[in-house]
């Protein structure tokens, strides 16, 4: 492993903690464990140029690894189902409060063969219409504009983590309090805008 500067570890740890909180997510409260993951992220950033999941084998090619750049495309589904993302950097509210314990999380990422098949299908399924709707693959944020934003305003991932949104592909949830919309399997634990809990969301589409 590359020599890491502890000040850098501290800086990234603090940033992730701040951003997680702002977006309605929680970092794993086991600080030693979480700092080890942060070291892994910095190591991957240094060797690949992007912070790939420390617990997955990266190809070293950004385009092939887009789905496993932290936060990964599978984070929210794993938090919902298992109480943590695959590497356990992010945990659910239950786990944070100690009401649920963590076990080994099975790999949700499709195998390399399945991934190349999916990519071929996705290339052929563009929406008709002149105002494309973009969906952040990480948090489900939706926006209609010519191109996705440079950075997701909700979860801060980069532009290349967005996809064209196909209306029937996934439920759209509406926060009954502030009207925030997002397309994902389940509503987020906390509304990223007004901070109300999951049960304040309703199915919009």
């Amino acid at each position, binding site marked *: 492993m590359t020599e890491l500067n502890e000040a850098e570890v501290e800086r990234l740890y603090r940033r992730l903690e701040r951003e997680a909180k702002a977006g309605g997510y929680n970092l794993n409260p086991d600080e030693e464990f979480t700092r080890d993951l942060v070291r892994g992220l910095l190591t991957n950033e240094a060797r690949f140029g992007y912070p790939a999941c420390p617990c997955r084998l990266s190809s070293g090619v950004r385009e092939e690894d887009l789905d496993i750049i932290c936060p990964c495309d599978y984070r929210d589904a794993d938090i919902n189902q298992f109480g943590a993302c695959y*590497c356990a950097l992010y945990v659910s509210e239950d786990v944070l409060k100690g009401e649920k314990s963590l076990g080994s999380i099975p*790999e949700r990422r499709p195998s*390399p063969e399945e991934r190349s098949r999916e990519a071929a299908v996705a290339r052929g399924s563009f929406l008709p219409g002149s105002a494309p709707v973009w969906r952040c693959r990480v948090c489900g944020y939706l926006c209609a504009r010519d191109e996705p934003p440079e950075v997701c305003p909700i979860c801060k991932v980069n532009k290349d983590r967005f996809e064209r949104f196909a209306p029937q592909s996934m439920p759209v949830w509406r926060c009954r309090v502030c009207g925030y919309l997002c397309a994902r399997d389940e509503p987020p634990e906390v509304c990223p805008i007004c901070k109300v809990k999951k049960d304040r969301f309703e199915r919009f589409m």
Partner: protein
Amino acid sequence: MNVVTVKGQNRGKVMLYALSTCVWCKKTKDLLSRLGVEYSYVFVDLERGAERKKAIEEVTRFNPACSFPTLVINDQKCIVGFKENETREALGL
């Protein structure tokens, strides 16, 4: 392949496929060391070229998802992920 052997009590062939950055792999290594068994490990992410390909093939044979840690005991029993109880049981400890 850069396989490192950690000396200890012989409980059969214990091979750990790991990633150098993976915290769950580290937990598995720590567990094996704590149990005092002899085991070997390889950091697949640090392998290059043909050696890396070979390592990936070995992992995939036991675990098609090619996820880590993958622990293989006596070329038969495969444990995917950090599973303390299952590992102890497989090693008869």
